[in-house]
């Protein structure tokens, strides 16, 4: 894995103070929320679709071996190859070997989060291949040498002016000398530059949103059409996909397609929904000569057995990011790896080790909006809590927090002691904060009160107020 050199707290501090990033995040999340909400409102079947999608995923996960074997058999029948990668390293090796055998010079890529997860671009470039991301957002962050900051809109943190500067730097040598200020000009210039790459590419790599066992097809959805040019014009097409992405039938895939675009970008459907099944057929005038699918496990088969199986329902739509108050305040880069937001805070510790990403599951308010919008009903707050519990159990939780939690546990389990302490401290805090109505400093909580005030208690404990109210009602 690509290990960040800064701490989570450092990255958060940088993000919170970055005015451009804050403006970009506000703008983007507002748009997604509104568009999604309008479409969900217009579709009375949305809730039933979520339930069906959850049931299909649960059914597939309980029979994952069988569905993968069926899918594999069907891909082979259609003339394709299936490779099984137990680890990220295995996946990189498999793909490198295919590219080597194809004598690949130029490799075009459609958007694939799995390829980010396995660190594919670095490996391909190290082996001497030229790799070009073709999704406009991915292309922009590739030029900027940055990881994606959102799983659907990877360059969401970049402003138009920054993109103009990047194009100046990277397109000048290709003969594009005009400084661009309009989005339409930038899209057009990227279109011209990338056209050349599509037609030159030896290998095209795409992701796979769904793998259909019935037909041996991989499905991708895009708005730009870049995935289609990538896979139709290269000699070799490689699909990278997680093992959990298999669905039984085309009808089942349809249920997910109805949920995915609405949840991801607030569209009824993406512009292009593409099924790819094997290489070019006899007589075909275009299409790749070879079709490979690399099924990536990388910890997923282990996840299947424990408390985190439900996480494998994830279809990578990004709705949980857009609705997360933490993500929309700090952006994707603060999370330190490829998967940000609530889904990333579960996946990153599970894939890389719960000791490697201590902060992520703890940087959550447990407000539950992610679970409310998740199209496959993943109980994300519950899973984050479970990681916290395991971190505590394994002694990963830092000392100060352990002591505080243990002290709290002692107190919270002794009602008499708790009430006595509250009857003493609530009036005290109330008196201390009487003048301002709030407290600007508290012992042992400087980190919290540095940036905010604690509203002062009103003078009575909840129990006292409750008794008084019941008394008044009687």
């Amino acid at each position: 894995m690509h290990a960040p050199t800064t701490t989570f707290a450092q990255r958060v501090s940088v993000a919170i103070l970055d005015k451009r990033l804050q403006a970009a995040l506000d703008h983007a999340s507002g748009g997604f929320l509104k568009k999604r909400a309008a479409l969900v409102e217009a579709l009375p079947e949305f809730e039933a679709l979520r339930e069906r999608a959850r049931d299909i995923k649960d059914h597939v996960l309980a029979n994952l071996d069988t569905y993968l074997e069926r899918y594999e058999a069907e891909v082979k029948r259609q003339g394709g190859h299936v490779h099984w990668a137990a680890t990220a390293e295995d996946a990189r090796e498999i793909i490198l070997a295919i590219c080597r055998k194809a004598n690949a010079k130029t490799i075009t890529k459609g958007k694939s989060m799995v390829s980010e997860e396995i660190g594919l671009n670095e490996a391909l470039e190290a082996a001497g291949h030229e790799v070009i991301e073709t999704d406009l957002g991915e292309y922009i962050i590739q030029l900027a040498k940055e990881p994606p900051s959102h799983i659907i809109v990877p360059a969401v943190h970049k402003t138009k002016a920054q993109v103009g500067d990047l194009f100046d730097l990277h397109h000048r040598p290709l003969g594009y000398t005009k400084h661009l200020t309009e989005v339409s000009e930038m899209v057009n210039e990227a279109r011209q530059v990338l056209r050349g790459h599509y037609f030159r590419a030896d290998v095209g790599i795409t992701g796979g949103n769904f793998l259909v066992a019935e037909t041996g097809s991989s499905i991708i959805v895009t708005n730009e059409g870049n995935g289609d040019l990538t896979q139709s014009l290269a000699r070799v097409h490689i699909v990278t996909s997680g093992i959990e992405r298999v669905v039984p039938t085309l009808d089942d895939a349809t249920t997910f397609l109805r949920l995915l675009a609405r949840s991801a970008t607030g569209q009824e459907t993406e512009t292009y929904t593409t099924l790819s099944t094997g290489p070019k057929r006899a007589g075909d005038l275009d299409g790749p000569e070879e079709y490979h699918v690399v099924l990536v496990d990388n910890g997923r088969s282990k996840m299947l057995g424990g408390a985190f199986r439900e996480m494998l329902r994830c279809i990578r739509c990004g709705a949980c990011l857009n609705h997360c108050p933490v993500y929309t305040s700090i952006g994707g880069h603060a999370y330190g790896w490829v998967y940000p937001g609530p889904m990333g805070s579960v996946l990153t510790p599970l894939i890389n080790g719960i000791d490697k990403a201590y902060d992520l599951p703890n940087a959550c308010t447990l407000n539950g909006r992610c679970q409310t919008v998740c199209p496959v009903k993943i109980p994300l707050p519950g899973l984050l809590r479970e990681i916290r519990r395991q971190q505590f159990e394994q002694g990963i939780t830092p000392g100060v927090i352990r002591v505080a939690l243990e002290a709290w546990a002692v107190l919270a389990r002794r009602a008499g002691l708790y009430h006595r302490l509250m009857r003493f401290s609530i009036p005290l805090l109330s008196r201390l904060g009487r003048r301002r109505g709030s407290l600007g400093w508290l012992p042992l909580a400087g980190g919290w009160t540095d940036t905010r005030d604690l509203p002062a208690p009103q003078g009575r404990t909840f129990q006292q107020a409750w008794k008084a109210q019941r008394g008044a009602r009687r």
Partner: protein
Amino acid sequence: MRHDGRERVLAQIRQSLGRTGAKPLQPLPGAGPRPAYEGDVVEHFVAKMREKAATVEPLNSLADVGAAVQRFLDQMHAPPRLRAARALTDIAWPESLQVEHGAARREDVSSVTPCFAALAESGGIVTLSGPDTPSTLNFVPDNHIVLVYATQVQRHLEDVWALWRASGRPMPRTLNIISGPSRTADIEQTIQLGAHGPRRLHILLLHG
């Protein structure tokens, strides 16, 4: 490289599922809900395609296609050249149009293709790749013109799958569902048409 990836992955899956071998499969009963909508499917299809920035021109007969294509290219100030899917055999092209067949080339500006079906639910045309319908015609040119018969319009995507199964045709290398011209919102969420694929999707809708 580990060559036993398949066995390792399957063994770990089975261990996690608490068994040692494969288990007989009981398919999931029931079906996914289909979004209900009222009214004529063809009208719905037209409205949905227009919503997604495609243009639709109703025609009365196949004899009108050549002239309609010519008109569209003129309007778009496109050169009078066309790459047409060979599957479209019955069309009399105007003499003024230079028509070629085959896979798309980089310099192609306009293409004309048939479709396998059309989808009213969310708006889309469905194409199958094949020797007479190369899929690059759907993606490379700036202008993609599609011939759709009103009778091809299906209510839901499940109906398209049923139609394909009933056709007895093998699954082609690629099946495309195309819902409008290519677009992107990757720079500041500003929607821009013509990202990588066609800038324009023009549908010639044949009634009768």
